[in-house]
């Protein structure tokens, strides 16, 4: 009985008693949700265009951030460092296409998935071999003051606002690019049907390079945001794994799904941790997202926005 009351009643009472605090918790959650969304976005791009579930996306975030911060620490101007990292991620995309993807065309998805695990390990080792495995603080001059809203009752980090705005901008650019550019049209064609796209002369290999490069760019943005907050370190690639449950929630083929899924998971796990965590001994943030995903897999495997899959013989 006491447990039931602790579980069902007490947290709700707390929320009602201090709505400003709840709002703060939710906002903090949404902000980490933005990070999940950004990683998830990279997953969706690659999955849509090549049907590959890219486990390495999280490590790409780390790799991009490592390169960026490494260049900056060796005295390169942030803008130059940014451009250089974009070039590095593009070269990486080309290398992955040439060395791995091209040779695994028509393999089953599980093999492709496992090969991206291999890529993830390689990149992680490679990045840290060059730039070292230490935590590197990252400061590109994003304001780190706090602002108060709602008559000064709710406190927000400016950096969080900045991250949210950047993410929104990025998604808008991508959405417009998808809709209005020739490359975007080709991408959508490939996403719909590889064979058909190939047969009307869309160069599949180039498309893959482009998507992986764009995913690398998204990874860089995510990496900078994350690095500003936590420092650039190995654990980023583990935290980025939370984008996987986000995708289960949002559906693997839906860009808005990735965004909304990320926000839901981010806010959900914060609220769960703050209000229910102590009941279970704390640190439930570690698995909350995954268990939510597990439940989705059991009862609604296509996610909130994904399309239902029909098998054919």
């Amino acid at each position, binding site marked *: 009985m006491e447990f039931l009351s602790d579980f069902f009643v007490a947290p709700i009472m707390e929320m009602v008693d201090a709505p400003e605090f709840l709002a703060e918790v939710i906002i903090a959650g949404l902000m980490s949700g933005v990070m999940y969304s950004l990683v998830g976005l990279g997953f969706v791009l690659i999955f849509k265009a090549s049907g590959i579930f890219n486990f390495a996306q999280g490590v790409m975030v780390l790799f991009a951030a490592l390169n960026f911060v490494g260049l900056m620490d060796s005295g390169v101007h942030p803008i130059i460092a940014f451009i250089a990292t974009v070039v590095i991620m593009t070269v990486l995309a080309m290398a992955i296409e040439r060395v791995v993807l091209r040779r695994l065309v028509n393999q089953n998805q599980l093999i492709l998935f496992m090969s991206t695990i291999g890529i993830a390990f390689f990149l992680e080792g490679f990045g*840290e071999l060059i730039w070292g495995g230490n935590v590197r603080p990252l400061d590109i001059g994003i304001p780190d003051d706090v602002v108060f809203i709602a008559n000064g009752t709710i406190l927000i980090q400016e950096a969080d606002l900045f991250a949210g705005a950047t993410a929104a901008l990025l998604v808008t650019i991508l959405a417009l690019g998808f809709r209005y550019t020739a490359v975007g049209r080709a991408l959508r064609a490939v996403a719909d049907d590889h064979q058909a796209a190939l047969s009307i002369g869309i160069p599949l290999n180039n498309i893959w390079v482009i998507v992986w490069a764009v995913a690398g760019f998204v990874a860089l943005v995510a990496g900078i945001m994350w690095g500003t907050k936590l420092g650039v370190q190995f654990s980023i690639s583990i935290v980025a794994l939370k984008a996987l449950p986000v995708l289960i929630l949002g559906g693997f083929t839906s860009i808005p799904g990735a965004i909304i899924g990320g926000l839901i998971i981010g806010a959900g796990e914060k609220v769960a941790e703050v209000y229910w965590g102590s009941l279970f001994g704390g640190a439930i943030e570690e698995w909350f997202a*995954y268990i939510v995903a597990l439940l989705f897999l059991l009862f609604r495997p296509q996610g909130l926005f994904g399309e239902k899959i029909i098998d054919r013989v």
Partner: protein
Amino acid sequence: MLYREAGDFKTTYAKDQALIPIRQDRVMLYIAIALALLLPFVASDYFLGSIAIPVLIMVIAATGLNLLLGYCGQISLGSGAFMAAGAYMAYKCATAFPWLPMPVSIILAGLATAMIGIAFGLPAVRIKGFYLAVATLAAQFFLLWLFTHVPWFVNYTMSGVPTPPPATVLGVYVTGADAPNWAKYLFVLSFTAFLTWIAYNLVRSRIGRSWMAIRDMDIAAELIGIRPLWTKLTAFAISSFYCGVAGALWSFCFINTVEPTAFDINRSFQILFMVIIGGLGSILGSYFGAIFITLFPIFLNSAPAWLGLDIPGDIITHLEFMIFGAMIVFFLIVEPNGLARLWQLGKEKLRLWPFPH
């Protein structure tokens, strides 16, 4: 013509379906068993305790994942957590029922892990491929959290990292700090040998064919009358059983503590790599994979010293990541059947050698 199956005729289907139909292979197996039994007499204590024991335990875990991934085609990134489950369950069993013989406790721990495996394998009913990776990641993070945050699992030990109770088999300590390495080795070896035999039996029986059918084309398998749910869940259960036993042995016979860090997500990846590099869908491959993945880092750590180079440890760790990652990609592209396939090719060469034309 060192290796040949010609002239080794079978007159009944029973003989053709024997575990090892070719006489030369049988002889090789007997030699391998004899060598394994003789090892404690010739090998150093270090070799037994720090190389032979962990390799044999990881063979069990890799075989378990191979049954699931290589034979049934269902991926798991939670093997480490299932090993943890086995370790904690064995600890609970051995402390709650001290009169139970240790092998029984370990088998019971394996069975309990099988139940947990079924629970996390349930989503496989409706999804396939990499979706399962997420479901099993849930097992990885949730189970480890559970064992570290619920003190019941460690009998409310203050440190949270209890030591497995000592136990004897035939009057010799096989677990605990007093157990000699040769006894632990033989104890682990008997589990490895027994579970290898079981695995071979499973994959040549109906269940093994059903797993492979689900792996190769699940829709056709279903239309033939193979029940996907039952088939996938048995694969999860048996695979988790193997991982559970391996985890119990790891805690009881190798590290001598029951602690979560031994079974984190890196362990899951390590087991996955053993299966991929050793050979998907090959039990023998699990041996190759476990040996390779365990020994290669040791080699990498000592190689620079042999060459007179001084390379810092963290750089070697980064190199190890790179090499393993590259090898995974390499084997998936060039030889998904892994080292086991290379072994087979070697045998085919020997069949012709020394007269290749």
